[in-house]
Structure formats: structure tokens, C-alpha cells
């Protein structure tokens, strides 16, 4: 059960009509290390992980949807008024041919999202290490996106998202410490 709050987690302002940037931002929408992959990865792994860290996966997985919504807002603002010609000039001709100005879950190169991007191994350590790696890869992607735009307002929202990846990474590392602990486990002899 979720409760939806009809506002963004952090304000999204886009100042520059740089349609090409939408093509790159989509990496964090439908890419391998994007927010959709993150949300679905954590919210699925949580069923088969020790009780103590289920809540963490629920919280972070939920927050990833809030991030997904922010990225969607950025892409939408940049593309909603673009003509077919402008989309084509921005490198989004192939996107337009298939989707008009709609958003779609694909990466910056147009490759559609696939569940093969994520894993649920059922082994708590393996799953949490994947999650840590995913957070660091998303942090790196945000860095490159920040490098690609000179729109300071867009940079501002991207910096917020990057910082959240750093916090999440630490929380997953703490989860690893929790599952490493041997206390309170029932031992049957």
C-alpha cells in the first residue's frame, strides 16, 4: 500500500530549451542504472531478505519512484513542446517515430528497459552488494549528466538526486553490517 503525495520530492526547474539533454536524461529513466530499475530491483528483492532490512528496501525503493518522477518531469518539460523537426534535430527522431512526444522507458541510446538489468539472487549479501553497486553507478551517471548541461537549475535538481544516491549507498552498506551480525539468531542444536 502506498500513499501518493501530489508534489515532487525536490523542485524541478528547467531553464534552457535544450531538447538534446532530454535524450541523455532518459538514461536515468529507463537505463540499466536508472530510477525505474532501482525501484523495481529493491521492491522485489525485499520479499526474500532478512526481516531487519526489508523496511530499508521498501523505503529506498519507494524513494526511487519519487526520483523517477523528477526525471520524468525534466524530460517532459524539455520535450512536450518540441515539433517533429526539433525532436529530429535533437537526436530524438527515432524516438519520435515510435512515441511522438511521449516518454518511454529506454536508455539514452534508445534501448528499451529490460528486467535483465536487475537481479534477485535470494542471497542477502549478493543482493545488497548489487544494490550498493547500483547506487554508485547511478551516482556516476548523475555526475556525467551534470557535466553535460550548463543549465544551473537542472544541475541543481541533478545534484540533489546524486546526493541521495550517496546516502542510499551508505544505508545499503549498513544493511550489510546488520545481516553480518550473528546476534539474536535462533540456533537449533
Amino acid at each position, binding site marked *: 500500500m502506498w500513499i501518493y503525495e501530489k508534489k515532487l520530492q*525536490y523542485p524541478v526547474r528547467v531553464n534552457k530549451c535544450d531538447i538534446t539533454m532530454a535524450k541523455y536524461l532518459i538514461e536515468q529513466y529507463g537505463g540499466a542504472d536508472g530510477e525505474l530499475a532501482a525501484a523495481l530491483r529493491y521492491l522485489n528483492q525485499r520479499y526474500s531478505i532478512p526481516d531487519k532490512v526489508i523496511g530499508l528496501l521498501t523505503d529506498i525503493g519507494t524513494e526511487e519512484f519519487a526520483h523517477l518522477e523528477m526525471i520524468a518531469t525534466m524530460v517532459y518539460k524539455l520535450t512536450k513542446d518540441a515539433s517533429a523537426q526539433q525532436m529530429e534535430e535533437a537526436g530524438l527522431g527515432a524516438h519520435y517515430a515510435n512515441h511522438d512526444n511521449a516518454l518511454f522507458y529506454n536508455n539514452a541510446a534508445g534501448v528499451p528497459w529490460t528486467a535483465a538489468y536487475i537481479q534477485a539472487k535470494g542471497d542477502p549479501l549478493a543482493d545488497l552488494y548489487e544494490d550498493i553497486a547500483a547506487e554508485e553507478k547511478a*551516482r556516476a551517471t*548523475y*555526475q556525467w549528466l*551534470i*557535466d*553535460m*548541461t*550548463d543549465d544551473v537549475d537542472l*544541475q541543481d535538481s541533478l*545534484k*540533489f*538526486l*546524486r*546526493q*541521495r544516491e*550517496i*546516502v542510499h*549507498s*551508505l544505508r545499503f*552498506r*549498513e544493511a550489510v*553490517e546488520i545481516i553480518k551480525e550473528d546476534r539474536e539468531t535462533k540456533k537449533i542444536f
Partner: protein
Amino acid sequence: MKELQSSQERSYTPFIGPFDPCVPVTHKTYVIPPNQYIVFQPLNLPQFPLQEALKLGTLWPALYSPYESRRGRREQTKDGNESL
């Protein structure tokens, strides 16, 4: 802010071949965020004021990692030319 960012930056000097087709970058950098030095966050760490925390994306100065766009940042190459 600048000092904090540079304290989280690491660098190395990659191999440069004598026949590189493009102007080589002599100095490459990458980021190691502060989360890498915390195993389990200790209790009672200092906090940012709430308004600032909401803006920065973390309540904890110990976890804060500033990142400025490298767009337009130029680096000196070995022959004194500037490259992106």
C-alpha cells in the same frame, strides 16, 4: 564547498602514447564520496539546518558530497594547450 569537493576528488596520470591522435588529457580525476569511509553511521552526528538539508539532499554534513559541473572546465595538457 570547493575545498570539500576537491578533498573528495582523486586523480591519476594516465599513460600517454607518442602517437595519440587527439590532444591527451594528462590528469584524470574521479570522486570518492564520504560514504566510503563510514561503515555504520554513528549516533548523534552533527546535522544541517532542516531547510539546508532539504536542499542538499542529506541531513548529515558527514555524508555531503558537492559536485560541480565539469562542463567548460579546461585542463592544462603537457604541451601547454588546453583541452576539455
